[in-house]
């Protein structure tokens, strides 16, 4: 019988201690962020989809030489890179650079294998759309728009 009452005592005490924790949290300042009205700064290192890095001192605005290593190393086959020979220009000139972001798994092998360091991850994370085509990014167009 004494075990019964001591259990009620210890059990009731444990519940009150637990409620004490909740009460302390209750009077602490609010930590909830009212997204999307409020936003937290994201780390500059987050991996969004890839993008070409802008270089202002060259005509093409980017440093891609169409070696195709990014497309070759991509495990998801989501990168298409095409180039053509143009007169008076050494090497190839980039004509198509698209990423199918619906397939990308953000491993970063393309960025690591780029010998010219012409690629990086963008910081865009608020991506939503109604069609798959909205996630087929044309990186050259994107660079020009910047």
């Amino acid at each position, binding site marked *: 019988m004494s075990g019964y009452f001591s259990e009620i005592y210890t059990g009731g005490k444990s519940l009150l201690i637990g409620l004490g924790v909740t009460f302390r949290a209750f009077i602490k300042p609010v930590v909830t962020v009212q997204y999307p009205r409020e936003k937290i700064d994201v780390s500059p*290192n987050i991996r969004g989809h890839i993008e070409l890095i802008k270089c202002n001192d060259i005509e093409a605005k980017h440093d891609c030489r169409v070696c195709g290593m990014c497309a070759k190393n991509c495990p998801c086959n989501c990168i298409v890179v095409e180039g053509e020979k143009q007169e008076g220009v050494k090497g190839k000139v980039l004509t198509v650079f698209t990423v199918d972001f619906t397939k990308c798994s953000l491993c970063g092998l393309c960025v690591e294998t780029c010998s010219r360091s012409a690629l990086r991850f963008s910081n865009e994370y608020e991506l939503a759309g109604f069609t798959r085509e909205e996630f087929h990014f044309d990186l050259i167009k994107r660079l020009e728009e910047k």
Partner: protein
Amino acid sequence: MATQTKFDTQDKHRFLLNMGPQHPATHGVLRVVLEMDGEYTMGIDPILGYGHRMQEKMGESKVWPGFYPNTGRMDYVGAMPFNHGYVALIERMAGVTVPERAEYIRVITSELNRISSHLLGIGAYVLDLGAFTPILYAFDDREDILDALEDITGSRLTYCYYRAGGVSKDIDDTFIRRTRAFIENFRTRIPMYNDLVTNNIIFIKRTKDVGIITADMARRYGATGPVLRGSGIAYDIRKSEPYSVYSQFDFDIPTGENGDSLDRYNVRIHEMEQSLRIIEQALDKLPDGPVYEKPKKVKLQPGDCSFSVETARGALTYYLVGDGSETPYKLKIRVPSFSNLSLLREMCEGMLIADLVSAMGSLDLVIPEIDR
């Protein structure tokens, strides 16, 4: 997918009940067919495969670096050790050396990930038992870890950070400062979890002597991780077969006594404390130097190789057969949750359905890892 088990349909009081595939307490798409007699579960048949993505076949269909992103997507709660197992396997097979700093970074990030995984596991477990608040406290602490890891790995959950030959990015002072602040803060939080959950009479009543796994039973089914250690067997790959630089750290393996749900929960709490110790030592000893030495073109030599690591849920083994090309001929992944799930039938037969939820939650299953 029909159930293979023969249920007793003659008894008119018995009925079949589907738990899942969309049941919140299964934490994923696991379907458990239960044969009920009133509130007692007399037959249990887990049906797997709803989340099957052919991960092993995907590993065999592309060159070995192409499998990096897949490793983090099997166990999305504790992805770092899954990364670790795969890169370490390739390193062992091809004889790639890893800079010491990279090994330390791997240990630090893996242990941080283990803590975040246990926090989620504990939070979700208590949520299954009907207490909603503790998961929010757990997520509060987990947020600190995710923020720190996001800053260096670029992702919050499905990390793809380790490479054969090192890690993809060096850690910086901000990360070290954040991690130290987290350790200091989390040490003060563990007593709070004890006040809130561990000592709570309702929690104890729901978990003590529920879902007992004896040491013999754990051995028979090949249980691993906190489930095995909860049954009193101090087996941890980090101690028994130390990989990376784990042999240089001083830490204990917490074990339980009775093998019930409460012991498994307690093992997880104590493991988080031990992980804090490991991280602290690793940060103190962190050497300077490069973090990634890119290996020359690695061909997977004819022959086989395996590598085991300790994930948050137990022993994970990758087994690879090479044929001289860059693509694995065969990749087999032995995941911890699969063997832990196999205990379910013997553990839960004849139990009240409310206790079954408690016992199953204490196994901390991650279903995509089982289905892979």
